[in-house]
């Protein structure tokens, strides 16, 4: 796996919804400052996998996690689960959701500043600086420069999604999780967000869940294929998409199921 260090190492991870065993003994290493795509048919557990990484899986009723995930070498599911604060994990691991979900009552500026304000950043110049930089990083700055005090929901769907990306970036996460970020967007907005990924991986480790195989091919360096809760194959994207070693992967890529 080259010399690249593993930013996130998942060991023997099992996840459940009630009696439903949705992730089965997953072992995977996500390399640092690369884009890793997680693909697979719907219901295969790909969203659950990334929601385990920022401890968001457990907020769903009856949801349960077993196993270990190491973030920079630190286990985020230690034996005494209270030893690790999910809030700290979520600051390090940002997330962008399937549907754009800006806070409708907040302005564009306040949406981006929301996470910082929670962390007690009150310094106006510092806030301004981070908000502007985050919006620039999210490729939205030019479009909203003159209407920062408008409501976040006044934007188009694609702009809203980039606003959500800026909001996630503002707290300076090391990892950003994307949960099918383009599934509710038009092709042009999708292209903009894919472009963004290239820039983002200079500073961040990125994991993107997608059901769109060509998208995985366009944006990712590595790809993991999940099927019914099992990790079937994990490899460099160009290899996995063109010469999969596993029969099931091949079947999925050629559209035989899912």
């Amino acid at each position: 796996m080259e010399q690249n260090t593993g930013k996130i190492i998942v060991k023997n991870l099992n996840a459940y919804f009630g009696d439903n065993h949705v992730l089965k003994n997953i072992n995977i290493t996500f390399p640092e400052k690369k884009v890793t795509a997680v693909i697979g048919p719907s219901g295969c557990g790909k969203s659950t996998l990334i929601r385990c990484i920022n401890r968001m899986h457990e907020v769903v009723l009856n949801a349960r996690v077993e196993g270990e995930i190491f973030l920079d070498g630190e286990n985020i599911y230690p034996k005494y689960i209270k030893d690790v604060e999910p809030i700290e994990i979520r600051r390090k691991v940002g997330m962008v959701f399937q549907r754009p979900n800006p806070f409708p009552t907040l302005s564009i500026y306040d949406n981006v500043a929301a996470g910082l304000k929670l962390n007690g950043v009150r310094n106006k110049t510092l806030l301004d600086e981070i908000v502007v930089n985050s919006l620039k990083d999210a490729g939205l700055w030019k479009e909203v420069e003159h209407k920062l005090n408008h409501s976040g929901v006044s934007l188009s769907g694609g702009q809203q999604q980039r606003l959500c990306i800026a909001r996630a970036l503002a707290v300076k996460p090391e990892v950003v999780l994307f949960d099918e970020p383009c599934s509710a967007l038009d092709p042009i907005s999708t292209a903009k967000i894919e472009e963004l990924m290239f820039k983002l991986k200079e500073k961040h480790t990125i994991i993107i869940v997608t059901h769109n195989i060509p998208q995985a091919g366009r944006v990712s360096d590595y790809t993991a294929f999940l099927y019914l809760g099992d990790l079937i194959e994990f490899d460099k994207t160009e290899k996995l998409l063109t010469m999969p070693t596993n029969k099931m992967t091949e079947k999925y890529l050629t559209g035989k199921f899912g």
Partner: protein
Amino acid sequence: MSIKRKIISKIMMTSTLLCALVTLIPLISIFLYVISKGITNINLDFFMNLPKPVGEPGGGMSNAIVGSLILVGLSSIWAIPVSILGGVYLAEYGNNKLGTIIRFLADVLSGIPSIVVGIFAYVVFVLPMKTFSTISGAFALGIIMIPSVMRITEEMVRMVPNTLREASWALGISQFRTTVSIVLKTAKAGIITGVMLSIARIAGETAPLLFTAFGNRFWNQGLNTPIASLPLQIFVYAMSPFEDWHKQAWSGALVLIMLVFLTSYLSRRTMKSRYKI
């Protein structure tokens, strides 16, 4: 920093639970007092006898209990058909301006204080008849029933899927028969729930009866004469200076609360059984 935020969060979370617990204190206290103070005086006399003057033992509230039943019965007789027909109209034909206006007025009517309804019934019945009367009380209580029963009927009828109506029309069954034997039958449980909740509410109403039904120490003599009612009697006894009457008031409160909760409970049961067809 983070510890402070965590502590604030914990404190706020805990205080929401405290809010719920604090609110249960008056509920429990009311129950305990009504039961413990009410039960001592409840016996056969209480249900069989008329009120006695202060100091004479053995007085009861028979006339008030029967009076409440009569008032609730009479108001139901006129208000329920009006509400159900009105509700059916709103649901089946009411997607127009008239429907909107009526819906709006029903909402307004449901929000006005019940004492104002009492004034209305006073002007309409008591002034021309020059006497407090059973009928004016039943009129006032009926008006309080109408908005809620009408709106719940509308909602329940709207919930009946259109496919059922179409199936019936396709068989050549008239709109009238479709509404009565298919739509209303399907919506029955929900409507009954609404009716019972509303009965429970008017059974406890006092304010609109103060100057309509007025109250009566004896048996009611007809529609155009004053009539006793349980909540009214409780009010009069509770505000009196006599220990004896206070005891009677607590017993009356126990009977009233039982009646009201029984009705609410039954309505909840119909509501639940609806989903187990």
